[in-house]
């Protein structure tokens, strides 16, 4: 039986702006089982990166407030000192970032950037480190690892750079890998290759992967479970099947309906009106998604929406899902009635 080795409880992260703190993610409760592939989806600005950086401890404490608990193999990451955290980062958990070019130091060779992780977490000598770097580059699908190891980031293509970032993240075979939109900056064919690399790593290293994406399309045949985020909150969590076959929350359903792959005719493509509220404009009460589905009566939403267990570990926020319909569907039912 898989055990919950990452358990996020009641996490809130807020940023200081003009002397006041604004919540970027609220009441996050989420767990990851060992060797599980979890996808976190949501439009840009929903707080996905904030969540990832909260887990990794990458926020600047000078202007960030974090509350709650992030238990990792039984230890609360949020209570750790910077020094304790550095034992975990790189060795037990690694992160892959969205922009492969800016995430690599332009002045350092690929091999030095990968072996930097080995410097802090292993006792390998320089020859062994070199061999390990070459092996890692091979594992992430680079054909000529010896050559690439001696290149600088600017000499590589976007896909190559992303592979190098993955090699950095998996250098010490961490149990948890967080990939924050690793394919957003890449073309479609390269995207598929990068996802393949992630799937392979998960299988061979038995690690858990949190894949953050705004593209539900990449999730269906990669993830085990999906967490949907909207405006800093998780609005629905379930297995891939539950989310794709029985989506409940209006936001999940809108996202799915706006996926080009599922809607073969382009005139049928659904567009979610409006946008994710900024931190300063976040509604204090009520369903945060309500303003974008104005045809749903206010009384259908909960005042302070909470998560509901709909069985089999499928959770959804707010009971409005029971009354949700798309505008065109409404018309159909009215005509019929």
């Amino acid at each position: 039986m898989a055990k919950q080795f990452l358990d996020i409880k009641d996490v809130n992260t807020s940023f200081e702006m003009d002397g006041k703190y604004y919540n970027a993610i609220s009441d996050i409760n989420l767990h990851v089982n060992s060797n599980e592939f979890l996808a976190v989806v949501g439009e840009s600005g929903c707080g996905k990166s904030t969540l990832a950086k909260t887990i990794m401890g990458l926020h600047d404490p000078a202007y960030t407030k974090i509350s709650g608990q992030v238990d990792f193999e039984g230890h609360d990451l949020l209570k750790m000192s910077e020094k304790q955290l550095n034992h975990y980062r790189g060795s037990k958990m690694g992160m892959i970032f969205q922009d492969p070019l800016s995430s690599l130091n332009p002045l350092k060779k690929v091999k030095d950037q990968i072996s930097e992780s080995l410097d802090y977490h292993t006792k390998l000598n320089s020859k062994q480190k070199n061999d390990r770097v070459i092996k890692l580059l091979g594992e992430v699908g680079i054909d000529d690892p010896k050559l690439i190891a001696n290149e600088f980031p600017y000499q590589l293509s976007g896909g190559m750079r992303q592979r190098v970032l993955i090699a950095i993240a998996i250098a010490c075979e961490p149990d948890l890998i967080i990939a924050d939109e690793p394919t957003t900056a890449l073309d479609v064919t390269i995207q598929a290759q990068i996802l393949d690399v992630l799937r392979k790593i998960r299988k061979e290293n038995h690690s858990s992967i949190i894949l953050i994406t705004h593209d539900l399309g990449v999730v269906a045949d990669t993830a085990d479970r999906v967490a949907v985020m909207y405006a800093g909150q998780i609005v629905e969590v379930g297995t891939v099947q539950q989310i794709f076959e029985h989506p409940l929350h209006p936001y999940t359903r809108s996202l799915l309906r706006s996926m080009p792959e599922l809607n073969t005719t382009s005139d049928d493509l659904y567009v979610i009106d409006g946008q994710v509220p900024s931190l300063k404009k976040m509604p204090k009460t009520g369903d945060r998604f309500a303003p974008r589905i104005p045809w749903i009566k206010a009384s259908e939403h909960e005042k302070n929406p909470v998560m509901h267990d709909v069985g089999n570990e499928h959770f959804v926020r707010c009971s409005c899902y029971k009354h949700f319909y798309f505008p065109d569907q409404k018309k159909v039912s009215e005509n019929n009635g």
Partner: protein
Amino acid sequence: MWKTILRRVLIMIPELIILSVLVFLMAKAMPGDPFTGQINPKDSLTQIHHLMRINGLYDPWYEQYWHWVVHLFHGDLGTSYEYQEPVTRIIAQRAGNTLWLALLTMILTYVIALPLGIYAGRHEGHLQDTLVRIYTYATMSVPFFVVLVLGSWIFGYGLNWFPTSGSVSPTASGFLPVLLSRLGHMILPAVLGALFATSSITQYLRSGIIDAKHSDYVMTAQSKGVPMKAIYKHHIFRNALLPIAAFAGYSITGLLGGSIFVEQIFSYPGMGLLFLNAINYRDYTVITALVLLYGFLNLMGTLLSDIALSAIDPRVRVK
């Protein structure tokens, strides 16, 4: 790497040719002739024409240019009308003074600017940063010559801490006393020059450190478990400092330009003072030689910086 350097040096050849042609044409365009002052006033105009002819001054300009270049390569830049000495010798006597002063100024500039820039960048937005920024704005908003005049007035004439003219005391003898006397003459102008030059380097370094601090690659390093101290050393300082170290070559331009003010106000016998005097006395051969030399030193400075930058930043090498 070597290819980049070779290419960069080769580019300098046309630059040098253009510089020399411009300087030569400028010299030609200057009013007057070199003989009127040298011959007996009773001699006729035809005598001057004769001298002009036998000296090749009526030849086409490109032939004259060619002669000039040949002489240049033999270290012959002509004779100063004012000093009645070879120009090369006059310049050689003074170039050392200017270059030592420039070097000392540059060292002081970096000694002041590096810690200030690092300190401000590291404590971005805090009191330390604000103080450094007040300093840089203050030194930037006061004109250079005001700083010099005030400095020499207060620390030279007023407090009498430093000499206010010359490059060495005439009474000093022996290696150490001469060296100390030279340093004593340089220190005040060098410090004032450095105070002025620090502001731009400090600001440049401060923003370099802040940019590096907030860069994505620093976050990557953090996610590897690298302690912040090591990140500062291997990623932030390195990436912010190296371009600034390379910048030293470019700053030669500023120093040479500044030396004209500094040497005038401190009556310091260097190339800058020589240049001003040469302009006063219409000493054209000296002016030409100095313009050529300044131009050459600037090109060399840029060359040094370009090479240093390409050694540091691999991205520069591709272009």
